[in-house]
């Protein structure tokens, strides 16, 4: 019987994880050296790195929860590998479920048939490849287009980039309103969004009025963590009201 948690699978994960670590370190060295040449201080670069690390911890825990959830059907190695490269929580579960279904089973119990397991591994891998092909193929062309816009009109180039961000932020802010027709419970994401936005404003007051410069780097992770933490009493309160 095939065991998805066997040593061979862990060895495959180890190879890919070592590759991810090596790639990340290579790009840190590349960017750090260039930043120093540009005159960006080591202090700012270190602050950037620490802030990114703090910001990442909680979302990474939610990714770990995804690994745990998928491990019930796929063991630990494959979900671990998939969620460390390219994958995203929103993609891996539907991909695994679709593959299992095509093989006439589901994800309700541990997959011990190697053919079904390899089907799932192939579908999870091939279902999300465009980024790895399109970035090397078209990344430079896309960047050159942005450079051209910037070089023609610096102010418009800056507004163009801001508009891109606002497009992304608008889509995800709008998504928060997707549940409000479900009653008071459906408003919970909205309440959490407002509370974390208020926390961000409080951080801004500390930075601007009290001159707590260090907080500038940590305002977003702190507000996000605060918002997530407050989601617990908000949910309890709403549950008590309905």
């Amino acid at each position, binding site marked *: 019987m095939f065991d998805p948690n066997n040593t061979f*699978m862990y060895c495959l994960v180890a190879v*890919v994880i070592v590759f991810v670590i090596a790639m*990340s370190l290579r*790009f840190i060295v590349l960017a750090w050296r*260039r*930043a120093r040449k540009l005159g960006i201080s080591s202090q700012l670069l270190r602050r*950037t790195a620490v802030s*990114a*690390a703090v910001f*990442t911890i909680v979302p990474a*825990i939610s990714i*770990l929860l995804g690994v*745990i959830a998928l491990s019930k059907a796929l063991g630990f190695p494959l979900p*671990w590998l998939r*969620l*460390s*490269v*390219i994958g*995203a*929580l*929103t993609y891996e579960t539907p991909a695994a479920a679709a*593959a299992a*279904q*095509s093989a006439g089973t589901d994800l309700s119990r541990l997959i011990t048939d190697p*053919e079904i397991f390899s*089907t799932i*591994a*192939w*579908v999870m*891998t091939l*279902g999300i490849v465009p980024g*790895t092909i*399109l*970035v*090397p193929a078209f990344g430079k062309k896309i960047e050159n287009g942005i450079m051209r816009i910037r070089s023609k009109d610096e*102010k418009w180039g800056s*507004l163009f*980039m*801001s*508009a891109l*961000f*606002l*497009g992304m*932020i*608008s889509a995800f802010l709008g*998504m*928060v309103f*997707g*549940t*409000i*027709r479900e009653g008071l419970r459906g408003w919970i994401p*909205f309440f959490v*969004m407002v509370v*974390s936005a208020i926390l961000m404003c409080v951080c801004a007051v500390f930075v601007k009025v009290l001159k707590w410069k260090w907080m*500038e780097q940590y305002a*977003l992770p702190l*507000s*996000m963590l605060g*918002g997530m933490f407050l*989601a617990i009493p908000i949910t309890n309160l709403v549950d008590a009201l309905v």
Partner: protein
Amino acid sequence: MDSYDVFRDYEHRVGRWWMLTGFALLLAVPTAICVRYDAWPPITWVLKGLLGVAPIYWTVGTIEVLTYVPMLGTGGSYLGFFTGNLTSLKVPCALNAMEAAGVEPGTEAGEVISTIAIAVSALVTTAVIAIGVLLLSQIRGFLESPALQPAFDNILPALFGPLAVVYVAKNWKIAMTPLVFMITLFICVPSLASSASVLVPVGALLAIGAARILYKKGLV
């Protein structure tokens, strides 16, 4: 290697090598499973499974490349697209780093700051998952406790609320059009909530259109 163009060319060469090697490595994983266990799946199973996810995720993947590459810069794009979790982690992480460092995306300083933030984020994610799996028996009860569930259910609202404060407050005139459109759309068609990524370019086009009109009229 002095000019930005030369540096970017070098980054693309390095990035392509890592990305394509990584791509080969990813394909090697299911291949190795098939070879080791002599378990080549029927091609129809794989195609049927792909039919269920590829149309939507290949579209989303293509849209993400068009939208996120200009934001993340060269190094950040190669790393971000290889290590994944873009929307919920890498893109906000890079935006936050650039904002806090006072550098603009699309500039050389923005590029290096974004790359460092994404690389650190990838390393920390790898470490958290590894530690989590190794210590699973000790932490599983805590992580999966129902009391904590609301916190993990609300990561995206808790993330995009503060981001909105930063970017919408700075460009509220431009933000109004895509925001009103998206809020109305999601209220009227709640089922779209699961495909928010597909709507990112729609929001971006609306915002770019609004920005252009306001810019031409001298209002921004």
